[in-house]
């Protein structure tokens, strides 16, 4: 969507273009509000992903609880866990099988950088999903709390539409209560 400013009414831009832009906005809004993740758990983070779909955290509020087992039907790939060299081709294939537009969330330290398993001399762990996937949102934590995943999804929505769904809560205000 970029940062280019919208043409104003006075400018001599054909109105059709403006309408297309608004249609595009609408389409993006629809996409952001129905992010179907791929059922794709790798390790510990997968349990937290499951938790966030369950009763207490409930991803379904944002229409994101439809965990599709098939990559063809999903929009966002939550890489939840460590990717190792044996799994790497499979993850690539899964990503390639997803239809555009698609997004990737790297959940947890392992997916961000290899986490605790990346050390000099390691032989089997891929150090970060961004070494081979275009990651949109990073969620740190080992594993991240479900709230963090929800925040990550909201970040992704913001990235898609440009607007944030809920006002961002500053940590200081939360402490004050």
């Amino acid at each position, binding site marked *: 969507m970029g940062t280019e400013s919208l043409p104003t009414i006075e400018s001599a831009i054909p109105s059709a273009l403006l309408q297309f832009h608004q249609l595009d906005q609408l389409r993006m809004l629809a996409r952001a509000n129905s992010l179907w993740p791929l059922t794709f758990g790798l390790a510990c983070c997968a349990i937290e992903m499951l938790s966030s779909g369950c009763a207490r955290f409930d991803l379904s509020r944002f229409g994101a609880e439809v965990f599709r087992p098939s990559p063809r039907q999903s929009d966002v790939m939550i890489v939840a866990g460590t990717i190792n060299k*044996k799994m790497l081709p499979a993850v690539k294939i899964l990503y390639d099988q997803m239809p555009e537009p698609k997004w990737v969330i790297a959940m947890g330290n392992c997916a961000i950088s290899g986490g605790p398993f990346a050390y000099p001399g390691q032989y089997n762990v891929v150090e970060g999903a961004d070494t081979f996937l275009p990651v949109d949102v990073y969620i740190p934590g080992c594993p991240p709390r479900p709230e963090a995943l929800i925040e990550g999804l909201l970040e992704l929505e913001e990235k898609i539409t440009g607007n944030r769904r809920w006002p961002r809560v500053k940590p200081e205000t939360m402490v004050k209560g």
Partner: protein
Amino acid sequence: MDRAKIKRELENLAAEGLPAEPPQEETPVEVQTEAEGEDKAKPKAKKDEDVPRKNGLIETEYAKRGTHLDVQINPDQVVKAAEILDAEGMTLEMVTGVDWLKEGQLEVIYDYSYPGGQLFRVVVRARLDRNNPDIPTVCHLYGGANWHERETWEMLGINFVGHPQLEHFLLPEDADFYPLRKDFKP
């Protein structure tokens, strides 16, 4: 399960394997200088353990080691040991390898336990030459050994002769290294 019988039979088995021992003993034993200062508390134990163990059976203290019997035998005897223990209803808990780089040896460790009422753990170990790590498989006796042996082969390069499927298991199919060997460099 008869503990005394197991002990007797394993003792005999280890004794059978003794003659083959001397050439193995000749492998140069280096004194570990860096470890010396740190182990003052138990100098005696240290002295015993510095030399690779001879074949034979040791009764270990459970509270200290977690095992009751510790048997070292020749590699070709592991099947026989497994047969003895299998006949007594023991289960093979795991198969492990250790790479003794300094001694030029690889060690295969079999952990047996008894799933009945009594608490009884037996460790069977066999040392192999590092350049020629062949050991017979116990897969035909214990189905569970299959995966453990496969993993030990993959991680340490110990060749289990007669294993039905010595293929890559945990590592990618094209891995050509033994990561748990001490001289492994990625």
